[in-house]
């Protein structure tokens, strides 16, 4: 019998297949791929920046976001334009815009991450159960998912907030309750096809129990999808939170939220355009960063889903 020498084993199959998390070379290859892509680097850097701003807001922000400065308003009581003191100017109540932006990052990121995390949990569980068990359970769960999906997401959130009352907690819950459906459908589809893969059949033939099969064979294959949809979910959640705050039913005042700042800026755009531009730009950059990061992650982990409209 011929035994292949070590070197042969190494040379074989440096795959063009999607990289496997946990493979010995994975992090190195991922890192190299990242460095070749300046846009992805910028996106992750921006996200990191946001995270830092969110966590260390009290240390970074120049002023207290809630404080209404007396020198924040001009003689006529109008907001002050950006200057050396207030780097991005002040708003209609004399509060520092920059500080409010930084604290707003805290709100947006927190809502985005928590809501998406919750939605992912619910979506993965429901998707996996319906895909794996099949039968009547699957039909019921999927019909329910379809029903929730029929509601336009923003309108749905609006209606739920109207019924439950505007608060940060409700915003998170409402977004999670709207978003899990997307994950559930995708996960179910994946589980359906994973179920038929030969290694799952092999595991069943070995006599491995169902729960173990789900844990060891199916979940790890779902991880890329979860990561990708999670990243995009944060982008979506942030947008919805901003929209809700814009409408006045999101994060309650006087907490700073980008959406609310835009809503306020809307009234003053003739006098103080920076009130509208600053939060808008930050919002766009944030959503863009998460979208681009999600794109890069898709290319890395799950290239096959690239053309499926997300």
């Amino acid at each position: 019998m011929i035994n292949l020498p070590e070197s042969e084993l190494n040379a074989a199959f440096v795959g063009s297949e999607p990289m496997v998390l946990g493979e010995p070379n994975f992090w190195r290859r991922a890192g190299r791929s990242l460095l070749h892509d300046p846009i992805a680097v910028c996106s992750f850097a921006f996200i990191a920046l946001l995270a830092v701003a969110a966590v260390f807001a009290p240390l970074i922000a120049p002023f207290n976001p809630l404080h209404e400065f007396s020198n924040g308003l001009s003689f006529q009581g109008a907001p002050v334009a950006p200057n050396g003191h207030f780097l991005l100017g002040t708003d209609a109540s004399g509060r520092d815009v920059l500080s409010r932006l930084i604290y707003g990052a805290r709100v947006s990121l927190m809502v985005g991450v928590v809501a998406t995390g919750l939605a992912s949990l619910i979506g993965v569980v429901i998707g996996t159960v319906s895909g794996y068990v099949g039968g009547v359970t699957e039909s019921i769960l999927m019909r329910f998912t379809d029903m929730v999906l029929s509601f336009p997401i923003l309108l749905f959130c609006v209606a739920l907030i109207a019924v439950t009352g505007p608060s940060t907690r409700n915003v998170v819950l409402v977004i999670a309750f709207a978003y899990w459906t997307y994950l559930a459908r995708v996960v179910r589809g994946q589980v359906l096809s994973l179920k038929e893969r030969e290694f799952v059949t092999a595991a069943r033939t070995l006599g491995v129990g169902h729960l173990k099969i789900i844990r060891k064979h199916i979940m790890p294959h779902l991880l890329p999808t979860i990561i990708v949809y999670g990243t995009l979910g944060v982008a979506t959640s942030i947008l919805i939170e901003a929209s809700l705050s814009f409408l006045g039913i999101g994060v309650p005042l006087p907490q700073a939220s980008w959406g609310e700042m835009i809503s306020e800026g809307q009234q003053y755009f003739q006098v103080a355009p920076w009130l509208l531009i600053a939060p808008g730009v930050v919002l766009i950059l944030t959503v863009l960063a998460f979208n681009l990061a999600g794109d890069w992650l898709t290319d890395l982990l799950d290239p096959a889903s690239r053309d499926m409209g997300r």
Partner: protein
Amino acid sequence: MTSPTSTTLVDVRDLNVYFRVRRGLAASRSIKAVDGVSFELSPGQTLGIAGESGSGKSTVARTLVQIIRPTAGTISLDGEVVTNLKGSRLRQYRRRMQMVYQDPYDSLDPRMMIREAIGEALAVRGLAKSQHKDEVHQLLHRVNLPASVATRYPGQLSGGQRQRVSIARALAVKPEVIICDEAVAALDVSIRAQVLNLLKDIQRDTGVGYLFISHDLSTLRFMADHVAVMYVGRIVEYGTSDEVFANPLHPYTRALISAVPSVTSRGQLRLKLSGEPPDPGNPPSGCPFNPRCPEAIDECRRERPELLMTSSGQRVACHVVSARQHRESAKESA
């Protein structure tokens, strides 16, 4: 049919596997993937199942490991009836009959290290985690792979190596029977020989029985002690390997064998097989082979032939052969 002896390992009787297909609001149709199949496997022996795609051979394999439930019929392992087991009894049964699959890549989880894949089988066997490492190395050694393979992923191995890992994994639960479903079909010919020799070695050492499924007759000739030829869900010829290859009786078997290129067949008449295997959902009436059979007679179109024993000890399902046998025995007794 011979009655199952006490030394029979696997005994399959009248296995039927029908699939229902719904056509909208119309009545559903049955696809008879496996239609009345019976065979035996003795310990330490290899039964080869030959046939083209659609013959039902893979369905038989999957039914034996209970991935597919049979519609009718019995499967016995070591004298114990094991059809339609459920729950913990099913799990116990599963360890005794294992399978090696055709696709070397997909049958191993690409995200699991080799030692984890084999370890999974060891866990089923009940082996303590602390002993896994040694056992994995032993198994790898048994299939002639270096211990360093244990920490690799399937994507880093070649097709032949992966199949050996699959064999190691199957051996890990110490089964009584291993079903090889086109286990070498996807491998290069040179690697094929290595793997087949490995399988024979293992059989010699452990006494495990093989059910070897293949469309490639030369492989079967090498591996099998007995051969069953399947066509559209039925066995059309059954006998020892020597008998079937030296003296094929059924027209289908004869055509298959003559299609195998061999160094000595220069100048011999090749029986050409025209047409294609029929749709299993809509087989021809009577003998399913009759539209393509060069020797078909009237009866072949009307009535389905039974698998009958010939004077030489082979079993064939063919009216023409049976008729010929009758004539010869009539001649002898005359």
